[in-house]
């Protein structure tokens, strides 16, 4: 079943940031820079994916990711179809792979997949024919690589060289696919120090093996940080007694102005969204001068364009034989 993917496989699909080198990430970010201007033109379109069909296959609700993928695809001139399968075929008992095979039979060129279970995108990537691409738009707690890269893009734009940066990722790391994708990208880019900060019950076992330091104290976790990434508390994935209350959580880990003062004075504040104001982040911080939360969203379009274009480039000259 699971074979170690080869290079061609890496280029065909975009499933995780774990197998990307710092150089590869840099190239994608450079491409994204060139796409930023496309969004600022009057005619926001380039013909890179003209004639290609992209299916946004979302087994889990999403606004930001699905919409920015849709815009990214449209700016590249692809045809985009949105499918929210949590309310269609799988509820009729169809298996995940059968759903994909049916859509594949409609000559889809690229799937953008979100699924509540870790590994779903890998499973689909292994089952599709060679000319079909899969982009992971979030699988369970495993990976959300396009979010990870758009965060790298944002950090690079505001803070420059990763080798001088201390990054603190704060909150529900246990359930966060975004955190995992960020950690792999940050370590690949040679970031000076990556910290995860949160209650021990929301930090995964052996999290240090990912190359980060773990902090349960917010004050030390934020001290001197150049980038503070706040994660959403994922109540929908939580089972059992992980934290006592929203109030106690905010009192220990909520990002307030006072706490942010612990970080570097030029630190930026990020959040992959959707935010729970007053739960993990105070409104005056979210809307404050150090917040780059909305630019993150804008950058998401350019980065997703770069990733889609990279896959299209990988299949240039290839095509369906039929």
């Amino acid at each position, binding site marked *: *079943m*699971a074979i170690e993917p080869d290079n061609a496989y890496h280029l065909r699909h975009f499933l995780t940031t774990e197998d990307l080198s710092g150089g590869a990430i840099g190239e994608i970010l450079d491409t994204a820079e060139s796409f930023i201007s496309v969004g600022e033109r009057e005619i926001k379109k380039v013909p890179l994916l003209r004639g290609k069909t992209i299916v946004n296959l979302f087994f889990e609700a999403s606004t930001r990711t699905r919409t920015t993928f849709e815009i990214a695809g449209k700016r590249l001139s692809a045809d985009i179809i949105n499918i929210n399968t949590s309310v269609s075929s799988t509820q009729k008992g169809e298996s995940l792979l059968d759903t994909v095979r049916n859509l594949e039979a409609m000559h889809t060129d690229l799937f953008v997949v979100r699924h509540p279970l*870790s590994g779903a995108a890998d499973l689909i990537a292994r089952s599709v024919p060679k000319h079909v691409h899969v982009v992971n738009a979030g699988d*369970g*707690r495993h990976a959300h690589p396009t979010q990870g890269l758009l965060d790298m893009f944002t950090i690079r734009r505001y803070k420059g060289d990763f080798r001088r940066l201390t990054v603190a990722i704060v909150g529900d790391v246990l359930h966060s696919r975004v955190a995992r994708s960020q950690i792999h990208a940050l370590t690949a880019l040679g970031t000076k120090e990556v910290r995860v900060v949160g209650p021990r019950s929301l930090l995964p*076992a052996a*999290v240090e093996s990912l190359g980060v330091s773990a902090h349960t104290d917010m004050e030390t976790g934020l001290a001197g940080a150049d980038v503070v990434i706040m994660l959403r508390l994922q109540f929908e994935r939580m089972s059992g007694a992980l934290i006592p209350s929203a109030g106690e959580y905010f009192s220990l880990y909520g990002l307030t102005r006072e706490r942010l003062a612990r970080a570097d004075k030029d630190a930026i504040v990020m959040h992959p969204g959707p935010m729970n104001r007053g739960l993990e982040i105070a409104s005056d911080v979210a809307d404050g001068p150090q917040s780059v939360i909305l630019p993150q969203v804008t950058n998401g379009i350019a980065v997703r364009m770069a990733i889609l274009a990279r896959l299209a480039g990988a299949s240039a000259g290839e095509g369906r034989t039929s």
Partner: protein
Amino acid sequence: MNIAIVGGRVIDPAHDVDATTSLFVRDGIIAGLGEAPSGFMPERTINADGLVVCPGLIDLRARLREPGCEHKGTVETETRAALAGGITQLCCPPDTNPAIDTAVAAQWLIDRARSLGGAHIRPIGALTRGLNATHLADMHALHKAGCVGVGNGLMPIKDTAVLRHALEYAAGLGLLVFLTPEDPWLSQAGVMHEGRMATRLGLAGIPESAETIEISRALMLIEETGVRAHFCGISSARSAALVAEAKRRGAMVTADTPIHQLYVTEDDVGIFDTNYRLRPPARTAADRDALRAALATGTIDAVCSDHQPHEADAKERPFSDAEPGIAGLETLLPLTLRLVELGIVPLTTALAAVTARPAALLGIPAGTLAVGRCADICLYDPRTEWTPTPASVHTRGCNSPFFGTTMRGQVAMTLHEGRIAYERPGPR
């Protein structure tokens, strides 16, 4: 039928026999070792030159899937697969659908295998009615019907008072109780070992404490009630240490581990390889090494196939949706022999772990080649290399990480109750 097996290397771990000699079978019984009994006229003489002749294997845990999940396997397909793997007797857990909680259900399974000419089924009866974990099953009736013991399969008994009463009652009847060491609260959500790999893959982990806590809880009750108990499938170093300590204290406990547990680690999950979705999960390399050592010292009494056959679809799913287990009947012997190649145990110990030792803990007169005993015999070629594939094995199960890998040691023939029950096709 009178059968002479000549020229083979006869190994009977129960009696320290390891010699190139002959074995004689008459009327389903081993009639002679070395010398033929007087007046013995073989109707068939088997040239076992180059083969090892050992007792038929006894598998402590194999799920046949019948009744209830016949698309995964049936008594017919799986007991024949067992014979092809050199296994002549196997224990099946009670968690079929319906559960093996009545004498009729147990008797049906035994009769079914017998009528089909498959391996002998030794059912494990239910400890609680319908495995409901609240009312005791009719254990005496189950025992009379042929059950080697009682257990609750994979269904946890959360209520400690119920578990205590069940153990007390079983102790009073002198019954062996099979326990799955899995704390439901800690293991329910998990799909692999909680550690480095689960963190990387974003999969919910099963902590080691899920196993050690349940072993500890059970041990307190085992020692208090004086019941004979067997832990099914321990997977960690600390579990092995707990069992070793309990044995030193004199508790009547035994333990097994699935043979694959001595090879796999959490790293094998790789990129969501559902063939490694296991229950218990593959743990760390240190755990695997400790389990190997525990087998060598006898803390782990036996290894088993922990056969859990599935259809292909059951594994072609996102990792946490995939069903756990390996179809292992036909790789039990070669994987056991590989332990010898790796220098972990000598050959007699390896074979004892699938013959004499499981027979001893079950208290059944099997797993030996002693004269007068039932002629359950496995003949294998220790040198043959072969590659199991879903198409080449007899089980209906399509699920094994060992499919496609080269195995050394292949069953040539299996005798069950004095009859040639399996013979590998092709020239020999």
